[in-house]
């Protein structure tokens, strides 16, 4: 049995995620789409907190809401008038989009519904099974043993360096 606060929090956050993700792809003003994306990302961060991954929620807020969203807003303001409406969708294009997404929802929903391992533990038992503390994350991230993540950690750092240089080389004025 969950606490009543957890259940209320779950319903509020999932409603926020569903409504704002629908609005992010249907609104005709591009700056609003970026703002709705921010709310979806924050809702996801709340889910991470609720599932017991505090570090991941903090990373989500810092990197996505703090970094990527700012980049989006910058590029929107650089490349177009933010008050302009985009063109109204043609019927054909809207039909194709709705068909593809509804087909995906039906297929994946059926797969989830018939999934044999779906009814396992509740959140309460899953949370008590393991407490993720920062010390464990740090030692796993920098260990070279089995289930250690030293190599991907270094690979990501090289990737980020390449990304910095690539971004400068692509976007600078000649």
């Amino acid at each position, binding site marked *: 049995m969950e606490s009543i606060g957890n259940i209320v929090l779950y319903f509020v956050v999932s409603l926020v995620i569903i409504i704002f993700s629908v609005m992010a792809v249907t609104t005709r003003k591009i700056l609003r789409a970026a703002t709705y994306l921010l709310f979806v990302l924050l809702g996801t961060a709340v889910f991470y907190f609720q599932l017991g991954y505090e570090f991941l929620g903090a990373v989500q807020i810092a990197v996505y809401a703090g970094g990527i969203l700012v980049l989006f807003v910058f590029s929107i303001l650089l490349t177009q008038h933010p008050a302009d409406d985009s063109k109204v969708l043609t019927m054909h294009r809207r039909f194709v989009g709705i068909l593809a997404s509804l087909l995906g929802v039906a297929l994946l929903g059926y797969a989830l519904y018939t999934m044999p391992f779906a009814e396992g533990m509740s959140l309460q038992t899953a949370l008590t099974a393991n407490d*993720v503390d920062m010390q464990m994350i740090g030692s796993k991230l920098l260990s070279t043993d089995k289930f250690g993540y030293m190599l991907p950690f270094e690979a990501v750092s090289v990737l980020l360096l390449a990304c910095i240089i690539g971004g400068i080389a692509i976007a600078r004025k000649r």
Partner: protein
Amino acid sequence: MNLDMLMYLIPSLIMFACGVFGFITRRNLIAILISLELMLNAVDLNFVIFNRFLFPGELEGMFFTLFSIGIAAAETALAIAIIINIFRAVKNVDVKEITKLKF
């Protein structure tokens, strides 16, 4: 009432479907990128949910999401650099208008 795995997977499923819809219907390059972020975010959320409910003793899904967030940041930065460069070349970010490389 118990919060089980299926209940967490449903918002993530709808988020992904919205991303697919936006990716197909949008004409603006930045709006397409926003839809892409929605899909990526849904996948990240799925990794964490499966990690928490199926293998609560492990941390593999969490680390996968951690690296995925880092790579998504790099990818977005590069994509926006490319979009700004396209804007300099053709003064537009609409996929209908970008036909300079067409044969």
